[in-house]
Structure formats: structure tokens, C-alpha cells
């Protein structure tokens, strides 16, 4: 009996986990940031934020390249970094947790602070414009 309840419970937990882990798309993530920012994104502003340094040593492009449509290289370690633009790498911008983690880390490296929802929307809007 206990065993059955355990299995049933596990099934429910798995189903719940699957429901939570619905894959996001670049467009759905952008919509979320846009709503949070309360203003439409500006891809050109996103490109500037991405390619220019912001008072520190690195820009986003230091590791991802100015046109991130092919693999980049980590500025310190030289390790290959998979292509960032979602049209060229479908794994990118498909998991909100991962996207938030990397925005948090990398914005701190580039701007010495976290990015606002508006800045994230700008950058993502620009990345989405990069197509084959």
C-alpha cells in the first residue's frame, strides 16, 4: 500500500515537474521582459549594449563575438562558447532559468550590476533579428 502511494506520488511529482518545465521560446521570453519593462524593446540599443564595453574590461562581444552567429571564445580561458543567436542555436533562450542565470552573471561582469528587464529585452530583441 505504502509502495503504491509512493509510486503514485512520484508520478504526480513528475507530471508537475514536466508542467513547470514547459520550454520557453525566444519570443515568449522577450514578451515577458517587455511586459516587465513596460516599454517596447529597441534592437539597436540592444546591439550597442552588447558590442560596447560599459566601463569595465569586457563587453558581451568579448566572449560571444560582435555578431554572435557562430561559436565564440571565452576572453580569459579560450574555451569555445556555443553560438548565442537563437536562429543559429535552438538551445539558446529555451529555458528561463538558464537565461536569467547567465544574464545575472554576465551583466555583473560587463556592467558591474544586474541588467534591467528593459536591457534584457533590448539585447534579446536584437539577437532575434540575427537570421540566416
Amino acid at each position, binding site marked *: 500500500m505504502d509502495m503504491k502511494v509512493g509510486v503514485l506520488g512520484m508520478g504526480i511529482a513528475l507530471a508537475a515537474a514536466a508542467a513547470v518545465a514547459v520550454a520557453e521560446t525566444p519570443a515568449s521570453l522577450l514578451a515577458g521582459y517587455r511586459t516587465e519593462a513596460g516599454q517596447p524593446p529597441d534592437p539597436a540599443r540592444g546591439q550597442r549594449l552588447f558590442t560596447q564595453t560599459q566601463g569595465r574590461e569586457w563587453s558581451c562581444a568579448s566572449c560571444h563575438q560582435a555578431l554572435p552567429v557562430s561559436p565564440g571564445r571565452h576572453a580569459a580561458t579560450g*574555451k569555445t562558447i556555443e553560438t548565442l543567436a537563437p536562429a543559429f542555436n535552438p538551445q539558446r533562450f529555451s529555458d528561463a532559468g538558464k537565461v536569467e542565470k547567465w544574464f545575472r552573471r554576465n551583466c555583473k*561582469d560587463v556592467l558591474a550590476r544586474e541588467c534591467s528587464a528593459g536591457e534584457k529585452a533590448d539585447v534579446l530583441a536584437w539577437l532575434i533579428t540575427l537570421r540566416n
Partner: protein
Amino acid sequence: MKVITGLLISLLASTTAHADSERSRVPLLPRYQQECAACHIAYPPGLLPAASWQRLMGDLPRHFGSDASLDAASVSELNRWLVLNAGVGKRARELPPEDRITRSTWFIREHDEISSATWKRASIKSASNCIACHGGAEQGNFNEHAVRIPR
């Protein structure tokens, strides 16, 4: 038959590998691969002593000049696994400066024939880029017969 093949493989592995690199051949924890191998290779945990790993895991938001912050549950899972598989023996007695593998006495000795110009090649870039010359680095294979120094 499977058992015999397995035994043969492990026998071969143990005779070809150096004693020191035995421990670097632990299977990588999936979360370690996922969280720690984006900016640098998945350094085998045996390359640093436990105290160094603990210090690194305790200060991820300031990780060699980069923010590598993680949620608390991931940090403790990684910390447990790293400490469990950390370096032992002669090499692990010394805590390398700044907890950098590349500043360990054994590392410097093993690489003393590499000129500074070689380290600076675009194909290598940094001493932390093990995989540039040690193709099997992430599998813990640092056998010097397998080293290929790129031009």
C-alpha cells in the same frame, strides 16, 4: 565475458596511466559538467585539494574576476562531490596560490619546458585551456604521450 573484458580494460588503464592521474579519472557529475564547464573545461576534481575547492565554492560570485554565482542547492551538491573527489597524496599537500591549478608546484614543474611564447599562441591562449594540448583533459587523460601542442 563482459566481466573479463571490463577487467582487461581496467588493467590496461591502470598500467598506462600515471599513479597521480588515477584519481583524476572520476566520471564527471552531470551538474558539474552543466554548471562549471561553460567558461572553462570541466577540470577533473583531483587537480585541486579539498580545501581549495571549498574556498572556490564559497565565493562563486567572485570567481577569478567573474560572477559564477549559483543557487545554494547546486553549490552544496557541487561542493560535496568536489571534496569527495579532490586531490590526495603528495600533490594535494600544498594549497596552490589563489587556488589556481596552474600555480601548483606540480603543474609548473610538469610544464617547465613550455615557453611563454607557446602559452600565448592564439590556439592556446591560456594555461587554463588544458584541452588545447590535452585532448582528453575532461576525461582526466593528461598522459604526456597524448599531448599535441597546436601551432
